[in-house]
């Protein structure tokens, strides 16, 4: 059984996303610990990439700030190792295929296991390309998280059947970033997912308020929030931890966990 399932044992899950090293690694460590303290059930740690093609302007900005601050894949692993001294909730990486490929998939996944990463989300690795990393993910017990999009249609069942850890249901067309309204028929996609797998399913993209989080979590097993948290980091920089903590608490209450 995947360790990630633990994240879905406290009612609906709240999953914050944090770009590692924005604006520096010390801040990331503080922010992660505050998020855990305030009820985060799983944390997505973003390893910055120079050209994040699935991200909107807010997370693009975080990637640029983090890389400008000198973050590297090795430094991210060091941070995870440090976090694991006291952080017990599941942690997953979110990054781009080239970051893993360039590091060497075997070396990357082995480091994930060694430092305590439970899964990985790669937005530019669709179902058809999962064999690029899947065998080595299996070897090291790292869940390769599948994404399902509003345009997936007949692909939903195919992806859900083979999914591991949890399913990341992309709420809307386009890139990451806050949206006033989510118009996709989430309930319909979730029902197809449920017919094909028993693993949990969390909704992300465009969620920024407790109200939206409540709506999305009610239709699924949890809500994922990225850009709204990055905005707090953008605003408060090194002093963001406390503010992120407060936001996480409101959102966790929002999802009704």
């Amino acid at each position: 059984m995947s360790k990630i399932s633990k994240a879905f044992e406290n009612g609906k899950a709240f999953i914050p996303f944090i770009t590692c090293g924005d604006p520096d690694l010390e801040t990331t460590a503080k922010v992660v610990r505050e998020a855990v303290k305030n009820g985060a059930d799983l944390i997505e740690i973003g390893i910055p990439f120079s050209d994040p093609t699935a991200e909107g302007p807010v997370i693009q900005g975080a990637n640029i700030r983090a890389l400008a601050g000198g973050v590297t894949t090795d430094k991210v692993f060091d941070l995870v190792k440090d976090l694991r001294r006291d952080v017990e909730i599941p942690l997953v990486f979110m990054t781009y295929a080239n970051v893993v490929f360039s590091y060497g998939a075997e070396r990357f996944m082995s480091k994930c296991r060694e430092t305590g990463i439970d899964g990985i989300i790669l937005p530019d690795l669709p179902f058809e390309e999962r064999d690029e990393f899947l065998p080595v993910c299996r070897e090291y017990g790292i869940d390769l998280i599948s994404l399902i999009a509003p345009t997936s249609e007949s692909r939903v069942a195919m992806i859900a059947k083979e999914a591991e850890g949890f399913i990341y249901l992309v709420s809307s067309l386009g890139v990451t970033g806050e949206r006033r309204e989510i118009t996709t028929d989430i309930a319909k996609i979730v029902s197809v997912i449920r017919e094909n797998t028993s693993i949990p399913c969390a909704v992300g993209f465009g969620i920024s308020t407790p109200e939206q989080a409540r709506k999305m979590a009610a239709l699924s097993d949890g809500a994922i929030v990225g850009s709204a948290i990055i905005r707090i980091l953008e605003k408060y920089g090194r002093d963001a931890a406390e503010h992120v903590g407060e936001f996480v608490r409101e959102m966790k209450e929002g999802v009704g966990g």
Partner: protein
Amino acid sequence: MSQSKGRFGIHGGQYIPETLMNAVIELEAAYNRYKDDPEFNAELSDLLDNYAGRPSRLYYAEKMTRDLGGAKIYLKREDLNHTGSHKINNVLGQALLAKKMGKTRLIAETGAGQHGVATATAAALFGMECVVFMGEEDTKRQALNVYRMRLLGSEVIPVKTGTATLKDAVSEAMREWTRRISDTHYCLGSVMGPHPFPTIVRDFQSVISREIKEQLLKKEGRLPDAVLACVGGGSNAMGSFYHFINDKSVALIGCEAAGRGIDTFETAATVNTGRLGIFHGMKSYFCQDDFGQIAPVYSISAGLDYPGVGPEHAYLHDIGRAQYVPVTDDEAVEAFEYLSKTEGIIPAIESAHAVAHAIKLAPTMDKNKIIVITISGRGDKDCAAIARYRGEDINE
């Protein structure tokens, strides 16, 4: 390990967000349906001949040949096409395909602006909406082309992220495609990106090598000894090489933009300085750092200023079928001036990279050998930038 669709050796594939998967699957199905359809091909041929001005001339550069004193030099004049470059070959094909698919809107990335202008042109012709993404840096280097696109009725969006050049324009066009798929076709301009783009663009550009073959057989009764073309993403080169791949006696030489030199960081010579990676939907060679961060590449040529190369080129390099040589800014600018003065032909600064290598290569070959250089575009757009490079400030 199983391999996904659209592979050239280990290269290619479909490394894109799930949101786009059905769009590329739909595109592939449409392409397979129409590529051998007589009606589609008749329509496309008619457009290429009567609108784009094909076949393009294969011109014997006699003065240049005499001056260099070696191999006989022919120029494949893609610069004479409507809109001034080879880009129109691919765009007319894709726009026609998009129309058949019921799409009403085209989006495109552009570096030098040639692909953007070609897409804006096709959109005007077909009555489609058009949005072109162009790095802000390039909108400055290629201001004339920005005006042309707007004149043709397109919206031009300057991209400010990253290095504000071609790679960022591609990223932004991909983002826009994920935002709006149902009525929009992403008219990708080079033999790159996710499958089926490298194949579609290659097929539409392969008219170049088909014509070279026919024209040279008529003029000389034989195949060339070498075909030279510049390589950014690599569409004019792939088009120039394609029908010669099985003719092993023909050397295929891609000329990469070395910028200030392949031993500097200011280069865009991907095959010469990059390594295997995954980016913009494909596995291929990319300029990148030790941790896989894509490098901020540089070339004087906005059209070659890209950190990757099409997957089929990466494959031709792997199997040794094509050779990829670096050409610096200085060499390209000299060749730009040389061809203008020697033959009265002002080549695009991109194409000048291929001319520069020919200037080195021709004198080393016997007089009975034949070189074909693809002049992928015309150089009017570059005049102001080259003047600046030479320290002269002229108004465009």
